[in-house]
């Protein structure tokens, strides 16, 4: 039987799994526990919560969906809000596919789509961090192991979150939810390339200023402004040296 996905080096596939069964897996699982709590309060049943996590697989879009569902918004409004909240995914997918150099594997479009469907911010940040530590041709194997394990943790977190709310203290839940933004920010600021460090700093700072003015649009605008500033500074620096 032909392999569904290109597993070439099992060692790196397993390394990806093991790295995921660590801080990233628990961080993402905790984040999904948090989402599940919100979704349950909004009126979702367990199957709807699981289907949302599996198909949307992006916290801002999921939270936008649950928040609008909670107040009985129209389906059109839900569609528009989730579409806008997930706009960033296109750029993350392009960037992630570029880090993985997916083109060279000559995969059909649907296989690329499956591989990139399971790309969460956590797995994108992880491959960005690991790309300098692992050979280019092993990175895809690592990513497959890592991202599918993360996905499993996310689904488990969603399932557990739906039922544990009554048994675990809210203090513990909020401490665990703090883990995801902390982990990802530390990962991306740790990037080897200065241009990316500058992008992280600009993007983060601009978003804080813009959010009170333009709400969730700040994510898109902070990204474009921060990324463009970083490119500009990098090219100016190159001209000077």
């Amino acid at each position: 039987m032909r392999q569904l996905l290109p597993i070439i080096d099992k060692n790196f596939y397993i390394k990806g799994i093991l790295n995921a069964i660590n801080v990233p897996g628990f961080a993402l699982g905790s984040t999904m526990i948090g989402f599940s709590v919100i979704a349950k309060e909004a009126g979702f049943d367990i199957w709807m919560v699981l289907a949302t996590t599996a198909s949307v697989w992006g916290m801002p879009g999921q939270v936008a969906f649950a928040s609008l569902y909670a107040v009985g918004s129209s389906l059109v409004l839900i569609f528009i809000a989730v579409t806008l909240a997930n706009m960033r995914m296109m750029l993350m997918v392009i960037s992630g596919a570029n880090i993985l150099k997916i083109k060279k594997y000559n995969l059909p479009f649907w296989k690329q789509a499956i591989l990139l469907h399971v790309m969460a911010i956590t797995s994108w940040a992880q491959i960005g961090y690991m790309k300098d530590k692992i050979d280019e041709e092993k990175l895809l194997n690592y990513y497959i192991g890592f991202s599918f394990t993360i996905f499993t943790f996310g689904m488990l977190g969603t399932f557990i979150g739906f039922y544990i709310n009554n048994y675990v203290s809210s203090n513990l839940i909020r401490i665990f939810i703090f883990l995801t933004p902390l982990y990802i920010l530390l990962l991306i600021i740790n990037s080897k390339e200065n241009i990316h460090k500058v992008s992280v700093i600009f993007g983060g700072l601009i978003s804080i200023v813009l959010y009170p003015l333009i709400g969730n649009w700040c994510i898109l605008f902070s990204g474009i402004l921060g990324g463009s500033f970083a490119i500009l500074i990098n090219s100016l620096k190159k001209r000077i040296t």
Partner: protein
Amino acid sequence: MEVEYTFLQSWAAVALACIATLIWRLMGVFFYNKISENGLLIKWINSIAYSMVSAVMMMILIYPTGALATTLTEHRILGLIIGLSVMLIFKNLVSAILISLISFGVIVTYF
């Protein structure tokens, strides 16, 4: 809470949320296959992706919803600063995360 959706409407909402995500991911795959791997455009997109992810995470930290919204902004910022400082000093990601998480836990529980 009173839910105003029928069974079918609820699942239609889930399907629409799924499509709203799928569109962007598929467009990402499509455009990735159309652009050069090493050109300026992909460098720009990568920089934007880093900035956007940073923005999403800062939104969760500074303007959170759900359980995290019950903590004080100063406490969350302090937790992040501790994490960044430990990482700058010790150059170790796991230590930075652990120390930051423990500090945040202590701060939100006792202060």
